[in-house]
């Protein structure tokens, strides 16, 4: 059990809690329950928690499955720097957010779930985990030059490789490739004219 990244589970739990808070808030507000204004608060807190928790952090090792469309929120979260990176802050934030929703029956489940998420985040923070944004990988431009070997510099008929080695060694030694001038054939070419 040593390698569990608790923050990953805390993230799932917090996202679920956010959704439950929203649902409980809607039920309380729509039904105009007693103290339904807590329901309105709960909807707001739920939306905030969902937005905060939507972008997944990067796993320490292995690849991380991104949530669909999370890169926009990732940009927003990066702006806040240590406030969103640090899990201690998140743990206490979630604990604080969950308390007011505990005064209304319809949202008490959301309170309990968010409190659990907060404690898992606390555990993650104690173990030194941090929220690392998933950066989009820079598109690797295929290097056109590197994959294609040097094309032959002599036109055909070309002598076999051994005879060609000497001129290419000279090229490799640093001299600029000579391409102008008349073709010097190392092997005499006999033109048979019939």
């Amino acid at each position: 059990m040593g390698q569990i990244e608790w923050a990953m589970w805390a993230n799932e739990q917090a996202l679920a809690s956010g959704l439950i808070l929203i649902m409980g808030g809607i039920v309380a507000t729509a039904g105009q329950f007693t103290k339904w204004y807590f329901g309105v608060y709960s909807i707001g807190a739920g939306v905030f928690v969902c937005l905060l928790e939507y972008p997944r952090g990067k796993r320490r090792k292995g690849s991380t499955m991104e949530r669909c469309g999370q890169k926009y929120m990732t940009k927003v979260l990066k702006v806040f720097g240590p406030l969103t990176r640090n899990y201690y802050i998140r743990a206490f934030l979630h604990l604080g957010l969950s308390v007011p929703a505990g005064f209304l029956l319809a949202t008490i489940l959301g309170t309990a779930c968010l409190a659990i998420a907060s404690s898992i985040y606390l555990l993650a923070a104690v173990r030194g985990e941090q929220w690392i944004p998933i950066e989009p990988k820079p598109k690797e431009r295929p290097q056109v030059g590197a994959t294609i070997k040097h094309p032959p510099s002599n036109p055909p008929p070309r002598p076999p490789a051994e005879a060609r080695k000497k001129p290419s060694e000279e090229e490799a030694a640093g001299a600029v490739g000579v391409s102008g001038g008349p073709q010097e054939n190392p092997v005499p070419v006999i033109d048979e004219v019939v």
Partner: protein
Amino acid sequence: MECWILNESLSIILVLSWLGVNLYLFIDTFCWYEEEESFLYTRVILGSTLAWARASAVCLNFNCMLILLPISRNLISFMRGTSTCCRGPWRRQLDKNLKFHKLVAYGIAVNATIHIVAHLCNLQRYHWSQSAHAEGLLAVLSKLGNAPNESYLNPIRTFHTNTITELLTTIAGVTGLIISLALILIMTSSTEFIRQVSYELFWYTHHVFIIFFISLAIHGAGRIVRGQTPESQLQHNVTFCRDHYAQWQKAAPCPMPQFSGKEPSAWKWVLGPVVLYACERIIRFWRFQQDVVITKVVSHPSGVLELHMKKRNFKMDPGQYILIQCPSVSWLEWHPFTLTSAPQENFFSVHIRASGDWTEALCKAFRAEGPAPQELWSLPRLAVDGPFGTALTDVFHYPVSVCIAAGIGVTPFASLLKSIWYKSESQIQLKLSKVYFYWICRDPKAFEWFADLLLSLETLMSERGKAHFLSYHIFLTGWDENQAVHIALHWDESTDVITGLKQKTFYGRPNWSNEFRQMAYAHPSSSIGVFFCGPKALSKTLQRMCRLYSSADPRGVHFYYNKESF
């Protein structure tokens, strides 16, 4: 294979039946609670949220009954062994047990949401009907139970309380909260992402289901869903008396109505499956106690550990898997491994690759310390449960079989190929006359033990004069330029430079259209079984190929797709 239509649509039929039963239970219970006379007064206070809550409760009972069945592995193995009618398609459904478990879990989640929302409204309405502003029948009903010899209808007895307190002071409320929390914890730790991140977290958190079921059983003990008693209904005619609530007295046409709570019924639904599952775990514990003798340990390069073991009364089929536990590594974890030995051998073996906490620790515990080999008695003790799983014996039921393995998916086929070897050695007349084997691999080094097996099979088949029985194609999908140059230089040699086999390795991915087309031409009127073990994307491609190249003519070639699920 007469049931070939059944093949494809059996899953859909089963899902629709499950959905149908759910809908029937929901609608039937809903209508009952909406129309039942004994609940008329309850409906006066609660409205139709009573019916919503009760209907979803019945569906919850049904789904909680079902949820434990697909994961009772021994029960499924037992059913696999005994089903005789239309064996193929039904057995394939048993392979999809985990999918069904997830489907039922979603059903529980949906019904739980409806149930919770409905009861939230119910609690609020009970509270409101105790307020001073409540008038008429509502007020009269809520005051019932205040005088002696009266039974109450409204479980909330006074307005000077709040719904949260009422929730937390009733059994139903507290157990309901516990059940919901347990369900949410289970669901958040079971997402595919968390299972990848940490399977152990998923496994351990899932055990919260014990709390779930205990709370479910006592959830209804408070009996707060109250309806009129039958005796009271005889004396108190609701259709007349509901309009004359001001004149309710001890006697006369409208005596005070008496109410009683509905007795809990959840335990009746879940008792059977809970007992079955408890037996499952007891069987696992008993198997844990049985001795497993390790006869051979081979440490292959690239971190693969091969273990040969023996256990009393152990019978296996090719393609099955076992669960292994190593107390010295972890007391609670059981991990699945496909068996790589054939049933005809007098031992069973697994190949374990070090790719996670537990497997790495296991390999370390077994690996010989330094050059001196370890004594067999000093090796850590192992416990084995199984064998479970779909047997690949279906391969022998087709005249032509195609086995496709991607990467580590090759392990079940090791057992199968060895079994084919033994069967052809014993010269039993086989229905199977041709086997095509495709192995797509990125890193052949990890499976050089499998390449050895293929080499020995190749020699055996050519000795027996059955060189055309097994036709295998290996596809190497990860190679760099150095390897390519090396391969090009040795292209003309008679054996393959990577594997040493006579059949050459191909580079890149197979062109499935070509392969299937060639097979369809070569066997124009046969049933061809296709067996695959590997990633989902390739599985979808192969399913498509099977559909494309199966002929519309019932006497033509037919490809039947079987996926190995692990």
